[in-house]
């Protein structure tokens, strides 16, 4: 099972047990349903309820992205396995300050671990690392989510500042702007984060976790805020390392970006380059110490959901994932 990305305009339809992707030139590509995990739609695509009902029955997800490549929403089949008990626990851990803080801090801790791990790969980033560590120590002494978020935000700003040391000068980052991104590096970071977000969401969907209840982010911040929480850990590990590779090896060029009045965004060639690396990364396997099996980066995201479930049902204390290799 894998992810399918549709960049061209056209239509997707069902014919028997096969999904056909057809572009404007009438070229068709057949995908057996068993091969699909998630479909990501970037192009302008027509589809009908016959297709959606089929995808629902087969429990497949579709994520949609807008013109600029930003996540706009998902088609997620009706939950098959919900666990009432787990939902109650999720809420309980949100309402109890101490319990919520533990989880929120854990997500930040996992994120920071990978941020520092990235920085260690590059020269002249020591002072950034030092400042980030200081923020993390401060974060430990806080006890409100707001203060924690403040430390996390400052640590992240310092990290993005370090991008100027890491990345080639054309990709200078002045400051991180999200809405809207106005220069290439911001556009690239936003796109990459959006891909991590939807990937985490797909993984959450395959478990009994309710994606709307979160701990670090406020549940009202985004519809599927738990995805934002878990994505924190994987953004530096997966998305940022791809960004460094694409930029520093000249794989992405300024021509891969477009500019609008307010927006800077990756065009289709740029997106394809990113996604090629992204897909490869998700499929890359590493030897899992406890499972004694090779597991993919994508499964690591699923395991993070499992660990959270185990924490919530009082089975095993949650410890954020930290790459050990």
């Amino acid at each position, binding site marked *: 099972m894998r992810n399918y990305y549709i960049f061209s305009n056209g239509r997707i339809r069902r014919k028997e047990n096969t999904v056909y992707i057809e572009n404007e030139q009438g070229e068709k590509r057949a995908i057996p349903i068993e091969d699909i995990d998630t479909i990501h739609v970037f192009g302008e695509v027509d589809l009908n309820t016959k297709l959606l009902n089929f995808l629902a029955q087969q429990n497949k997800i579709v994520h949609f992205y807008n013109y600029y490549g930003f996540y706009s929403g998902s088609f997620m089949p009706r939950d098959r396995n919900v666990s009432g008990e787990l939902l109650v626990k999720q809420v309980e851990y949100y309402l109890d300050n101490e319990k919520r803080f533990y989880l929120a801090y854990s997500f930040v801790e996992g994120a920071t671990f990978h941020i520092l791990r990235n920085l260690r790969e590059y020269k002249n980033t020591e002072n950034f690392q030092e400042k980030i560590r200081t923020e993390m120590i401060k974060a430990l002494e806080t006890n409100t989510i707001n203060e924690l978020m403040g430390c996390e935000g400052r640590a992240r700003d310092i990290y993005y500042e370090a991008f100027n040391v890491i990345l080639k000068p054309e990709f200078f980052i002045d400051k991180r702007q999200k809405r809207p991104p106005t220069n290439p590096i911001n556009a690239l970071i936003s796109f990459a984060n959006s891909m991590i977000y939807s990937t985490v969401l797909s993984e959450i969907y*395959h478990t009994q976790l309710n994606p709307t209840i979160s701990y670090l982010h406020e549940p009202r911040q985004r519809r599927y805020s738990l995805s934002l929480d878990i994505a924190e850990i994987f953004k530096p590990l997966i998305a940022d390392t791809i960004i460094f590779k694409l930029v520093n090896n000249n794989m992405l060029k300024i021509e891969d970006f477009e500019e609008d009045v307010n927006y800077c965004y990756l065009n289709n060639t740029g997106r394809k380059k990113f996604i090629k690396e992204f897909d490869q990364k998700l499929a890359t396997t590493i030897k899992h110490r406890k499972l004694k099996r090779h597991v993919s980066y994508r499964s690591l995201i*699923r395991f993070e959901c499992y660990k959270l479930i185990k924490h919530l049902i009082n*089975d095993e204390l949650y410890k954020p994932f930290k790459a050990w290799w």
Partner: protein
Amino acid sequence: MAEDIIDIINFQSLKTTGIKVNYLYVCERKLWLFDRGIQMESTSDKVLIGKLLGEDSYPREEKRDMMIDNLINIDIVGNNEIREVKYSNRMYNADRIQLLYYLYYLKQLGIEKKGIINYPKMRKREEIILTDDGAREVEAALVRVKEIVGMDKPPELQKKPYCTKCAYYEFCFG
């Protein structure tokens, strides 16, 4: 007579699904997780093969997949026997207690039959009769199921030889 009435009342509060009785003998932790709705997606080929075996092996039988009280789902019901079709006998004890439980359940409804487990792949069958000892074993199992699902957290992880083949393997060890 008085004893019988108590038995029936107890049975009402203890009766459960066949799969939970089965899981009790496989792994108590799996039973607990399953009971809480924490289930793994059944993408495993084994599950599919099991389903196909159940559907295709005995096309001429009269009653298949009989569901009783939404709790027990018997593969095949014949005149004198009920049958379960299994892929392998790796979990023989669990399959045996499940079938014993079905026989016990039917007996509470006034129906007496014997049980057969078929292993078409292995060309084997096992006959299962509900003896008094068997009935006591079922009762003990029902009490234990109730105890396990009543726990406020899952039974601790203990590695079993078949964990690596369990649908929960990645959940438990990941």
